[in-house]
């Protein structure tokens, strides 16, 4: 069981309540597809991913980025039970989407960078450490049902 201090809970809640999901979601996903181009393998049906500009302006990618970020909401609201919260999504990513779980970390890292750029110096080393602890738990939960 993952233990969270009051301070860590506050930090996570504060970060997510300050985010504009319509802005950050697309930015995080498109950055992942640009920085780690092999992740595009999962987005064959998403239209033009030919170059960075195409990816950044792709509406399907943007919509998907928003969906993914809203998916993270469930972890924020259930911090004491992230593994159970994501059990079904883990099965989906494994059995239906066939996503290599290493990719979850890549997206998590891109989300960290996007939030860092947004929050600037408010994204202190301590805030970063807490956020990374959170995404690490999420990443682990999403990979938990793979077999």
């Amino acid at each position, binding site marked *: 069981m993952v233990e969270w201090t009051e301070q860590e809970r506050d930090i996570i809640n504060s970060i997510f309540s300050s985010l504009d999901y319509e802005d950050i979601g697309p930015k995080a996903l498109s950055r992942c597809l640009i920085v780690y181009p092999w992740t595009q393998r999962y987005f064959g049906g998403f239209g033009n991913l030919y170059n960075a500009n195409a990816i950044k302006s792709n509406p399907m990618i943007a919509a998907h980025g928003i969906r993914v970020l809203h998916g993270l909401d469930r972890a924020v609201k259930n911090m004491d039970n992230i593994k159970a919260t994501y059990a079904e999504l883990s099965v989906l990513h494994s059995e239906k989407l066939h996503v290599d779980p290493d990719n979850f970390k890549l997206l998590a890292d891109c989300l960290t*960078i996007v939030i*860092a*750029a*947004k929050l600037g110096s408010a*994204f202190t080393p301590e805030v970063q450490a807490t956020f990374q602890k959170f995404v690490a738990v999420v990443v682990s939960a999403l990979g938990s049902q793979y077999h």
Partner: protein
Amino acid sequence: MLSKKEKKLIAEIWDRLKHVAEHIGSDALLRMFASYPGTKTYFSHLDISPGSEHLLSHGKKIVLAIAEGSKDISQLTVTLAPLQTLHAYQLRIDPTNFKLFSHCMLVSLAVYMGEDFDPVAHAAMDKYLSAFAAVLAEKYR
């Protein structure tokens, strides 16, 4: 693989940042110590508290080496030869830590540069730091 355009972009970014080498370097180190406490074990001989002399000078040293390497990326093995020897035979820092530091450097760059640290710059920088780390570890075995 870094394109010509990416190499130019990286050289430009580090040319600008070397003037705030202490700030960026110490920021990245602090982030690494906070997120990956195991990395502190390599610094038991230094005072790595925020703002300390040791931290600032060490951060500056690292950033200036990264900036120097960026001036001619095709010559990294030549430029880094002395540092390769230092890390392989004296410091013997486990190379997994290079990845951790690189990630924190990217975060520092995002915090410092904001929207200017766009996906293209991020991709180029990530590739450069990976190449730098790989060269640094070349003499390990």
